[in-house]
C-alpha cells in the first residue's frame, strides 16, 4: 500500500482533470490493482473542514509519513513572502509545503506551475509564484531550494506540461509505488527521461511537411497541409514531450489538429512572455531565420538545410494530405 497526499497551491485543477482522463492505468486501476491509497485530495475527497484537517495534519507534524506528496500549482509567496495570497486550512499553503515536503518519501510536482511556477509566474508575477525546485525560465532553486531532497534521497520529480498528460502522471506514480524510483532517470529539469527525451515533433503527422519546409497558408482552411514551425510559432522541433507518441484523450494532439505546440513542458513557457506579436507567430531574426532553431541546429546549418529542402520539395508536399 502506497500512500499519496495531493495538495493544490496556485492551481487551476487542470492536472487533476487531466489525471481523471488517465486510461492506462486509470485512476480506478491505480487504487484496485496498484494499491494506491489517496489519503487526501482537495477536490477528490469528500471530507471537509475539521474532518479533512484531521487527515492531513499528521503528515505535517511528523506523526505519520506520506509515501508520495503530489503538489499541483505554484507555491505562492506574496504578499511580502508571507504566502497569504494562498491560504489553506487556516495557514499559508507554503507553510504546509515547508512542513510536509521534507518528511515525505518522494515529492512529485505535477504540471508547469508546480515545476517552474507556470503561468502565474509570467511577469509581473503578481502572486510571487515559484515552482517547487525551479523558477520560471529554468533556474534551479525554486521554493524548496537547489539542495532539497526528500526522505528517499530524491530531488523533486517534475512532471511538467500544461496540463501534464494523464498517462505521464499515472505511470510515474505507478513506477514510484512499485518501488522503481531507482530506475527513474531524470534530466536537467528533473523530468523523467522516459517521457521527456524525444520531441513533440516525434510522431507528428506534419513531419513530412517540415522535411520539405512547406507551411500552410493560414489556420483553419489551410490546416490540411503544411508544418506549423515556419510561420505559426510551433515549438514541436525543440520541445521535449511525447505528445505525438502518447496521444491526448486517446485521439489526437495539438499539432495534429493544426494547433502550434506552445512548448508547455519547457521552463520558458509561455515563450516571449505573451508579449505583443509573440502569440502563434514564429519569431525571426532579420525576417528570415527563426530565432529559436530546431534543437541542436545553428543558423548556418538551418539555412543550408532549409534552402535544400525547399529546392527538392516534391509536388505532393505542396498539396493537401489530410483530405476530406
Amino acid at each position: 500500500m502506497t500512500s499519496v497526499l495531493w495538495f493544490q497551491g496556485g492551481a487551476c485543477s487542470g492536472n487533476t482533470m487531466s489525471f481523471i482522463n488517465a486510461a492506462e492505468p486509470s485512476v480506478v486501476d491505480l487504487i484496485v490493482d496498484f494499491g494506491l491509497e489517496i489519503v487526501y485530495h482537495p477536490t477528490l475527497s469528500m471530507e471537509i473542514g475539521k474532518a479533512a484537517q484531521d487527515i492531513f495534519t499528521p503528515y505535517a507534524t511528523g506523526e505519520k509519513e506520506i509515501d508520495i506528496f503530489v503538489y499541483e500549482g505554484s507555491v505562492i509567496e506574496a504578499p511580502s513572502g508571507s504566502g497569504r495570497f494562498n491560504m489553506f486550512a487556516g495557514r499559508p499553503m507554503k507553510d504546509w509545503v515547508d512542513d510536509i515536503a521534507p518528511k515525505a518519501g518522494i515529492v512529485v510536482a505535477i504540471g508547469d506551475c508546480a515545476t517552474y511556477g507556470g503561468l502565474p509566474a509570467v511577469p509581473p508575477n503578481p502572486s510571487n509564484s515559484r515552482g517547487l525546485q525551479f523558477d520560471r525560465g529554468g533556474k534551479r532553486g525554486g521554493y524548496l531550494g537547489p539542495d532539497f531532497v526528500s526522505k528517499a534521497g530524491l530531488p523533486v520529480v517534475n512532471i511538467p506540461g500544461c496540463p501534464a498528460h494523464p498517462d505521464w502522471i499515472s505511470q510515474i506514480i505507478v513506477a514510484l509505488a512499485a518501488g522503481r524510483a531507482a530506475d527513474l532517470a531524470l534530466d536537467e529539469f528533473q523530468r523523467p527521461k522516459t517521457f521527456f527525451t524525444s520531441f513533440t515533433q516525434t510522431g507528428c503527422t506534419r513531419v513530412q511537411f517540415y522535411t520539405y519546409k512547406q507551411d500552410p497558408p493560414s489556420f483553419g482552411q489551410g490546416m490540411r497541409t503544411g508544418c506549423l514551425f515556419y510561420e505559426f510559432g510551433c515549438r514541436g522541433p525543440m520541445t521535449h514531450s511525447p505528445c505525438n507518441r502518447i496521444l491526448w484523450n486517446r485521439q489526437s494532439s495539438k499539432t495534429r489538429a493544426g494547433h502550434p505546440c506552445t512548448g508547455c513542458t519547457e521552463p520558458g513557457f509561455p515563450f516571449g512572455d505573451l508579449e505583443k506579436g509573440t502569440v502563434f507567430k514564429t519569431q525571426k531574426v532579420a525576417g528570415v531565420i527563426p530565432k529559436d532553431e530546431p534543437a541542436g541546429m545553428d543558423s548556418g546549418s538551418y539555412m543550408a538545410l532549409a534552402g535544400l529542402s525547399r529546392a527538392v520539395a516534391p509536388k505532393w508536399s505542396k498539396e493537401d494530405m489530410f483530405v476530406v
Partner: protein
Amino acid sequence: MTTMELNVSPLGQVEGDLDVRVQITDGVVSDAWTEAAMFRGFEIILKGKDPQAGLIMTPRICGICGGSHLYKACYALDTAWGTYVPPNATRVRNIAQASETIQSIPRWFYAIMGPDLTAAQYSSFPSYEEVARRFAPYVGTSYQTGVTLSQHPVEIYAIFGGQWPHSSFMIPGGVMCAPTLSDVTRSTSILENWGRQWLEGQWLGCSVDRWLENKTWSDIQAWMTENESQANSDLAVFIRWAQEIGLDTYGQGYGNFLATGTFLNPDLYTNPTVDGRNAALQSRSGIYANGQYYDFDQMRVTEDVTHAYYEGTGSRHPWEGVTEPIDPAEGAKQGKYTWAKAPRYDVPDIGYVPLEVGPLARQMMAARPDAADFQDSDPLIKNLIDELGPSVMTRVLARMHEAPKYFRNVQRWLKELDLHGEFYVKPTEPSSGKGFGATEAARGALCDWIVLEDGKIANYQVITPTGWNIGPRDANDNIGPMEKSFIGTPIENPDFPVELGQVAHSFDSCLVCTVHAYDGKTGKQLSKFRMGGG
C-alpha cells in the same frame, strides 16, 4: 436559543480553495460568509500583453471549464477586431463547448454530488442501501460507469482541438482545425456510444426523445412510474432519494437569476458584435428577478470590491475594472474576507442585485416566452421552480436535464458541418477596440471584457460563474447568492456538515473525481470509513 459559529476550512470538491464560515442558530444556518482563499492575478498579467494572450491564459484560470474560457475569450476578440467567423467555425466551437459540458454533467453528479448522497448520517433512511449500492464513491455500480464513460465526450473536443483540457484552438476568425470526414464519423460514434450507454442506458432508462416529452413536474412524476426501466434509472432513484432526505427543502437562495447564454447560431453571428449577441443565441441570455424577465445587457454588470481583498470600495463596470490586490491581513481589518469580487447587475427598477448563475438560470431563460424558431424553448425547469421552488434538488435536476438537450445539439452540429467550407478567415487586427465575449460554462455565465490599445491589452477582466455565485457581500451588505443559499440549511453534525457540502456542490462549484480518500474495496469498509471520517 443557541448560536454557534462554524468555520469550514477547507470545503473541498470545489474548484480552487473555498472556505465557508456559517453561523448556526438552533441547528439551522442563520448567516454565512464564503471565502475564496487563493489569488494568482491573471488579469494583472494580461495587461500590456499580446491581444491573443487571453486565448492561452484564460483557459488556465480553470482546468475544469477551460474550453468555456476559450470560447468566450475568442468572442471577446472577435467583437473587438470585428472579424468574420464562418458558420462552420461556429459549429466547431459549439461542438467543443457542449462536449466539455456533457463530460462535466455525469462527472459532477457521481463524483461531487454522489458522495454527499451516501453520507453515513442518512443510513437509517429506507432507501439508503440502494443509494449506497449505486452512488458510493468508487465502489458504487453507477459511480464507476458514470465517471469512466465521462472521459468520452472530451475525446470529441480533442479531435477538433487537439487535447482537453487546455487547448487554445479557437482563434479570432474561426478555428485552427480543418476536420476531415473521419474526424466527423469518429466524433459521431463516440457521441452515440456515450448516449446509448450512459445517458439512455443508465441515467434515463428511456430514449432521449421520451425524456424530452416531459414538460412539467407532474409529467416527471408520471414518467418515474411509467415502466420498470424508468423507475430504476439513476435519475428516478435520485429524485426519490432527494425527497426522502429533504434536498427539496433547503438551498433556495434568492430565486433571482442571470444567464449570459451560449451556442451562437452559426448563420446569425458571422460578424460578431456585442449588440447583436442576444438575438443570435440558441441558449438564451436574460435576467429573472422578482418574477419578471429582463434582457441581458453587459453594460449593467458591475463588480464590487467592498468586501474583497482589493484596494478601495465600491463598484465598476469591467471595462473600467481594476484588480489591485492587498494583503488579506490588511483587508480583514477593513471588513474584507475573500478574493472573489461581488458581481452585481443593475436590474431596471430594482437596482444592483446579486443573481444566481448556472443551470437553473439557463433553464429559467429557456422558459421565457417569445423564443425565435432556432432558440431553445423549454418550460420544464421553470415549472419545477414554480411548483417546488429552488432547492438543492431542483438545481441538480436543471443541470442533469441539460445532458439530453446538449446531446441532441452536438448531434445536429456534427451533421451540419460542411467539410468543404471555410473554418477560418484571417482577420485584420485593429490596434485598438473594446470587446465582450461570453458563454455558459457547465456551472454558469462566464464573461470576458477586453480593452485594446496600441495593439496590446490595456485592460482584461473576467467574471466567472463561481464569482457570481460565491461572491461576497457588496457595499449595501447584500449577501452573495451562495451565502444566501446556505441560510436556512439544517446542520445535523457540525464536525462534518454534509448539508453545507450539498448546497455548495449543487452550484456545481465544480470538480470531480474518480477516487475518494479511503482504502475501501467493499461497501462495508466504505461505510466504516465514512463513519470515521465524518
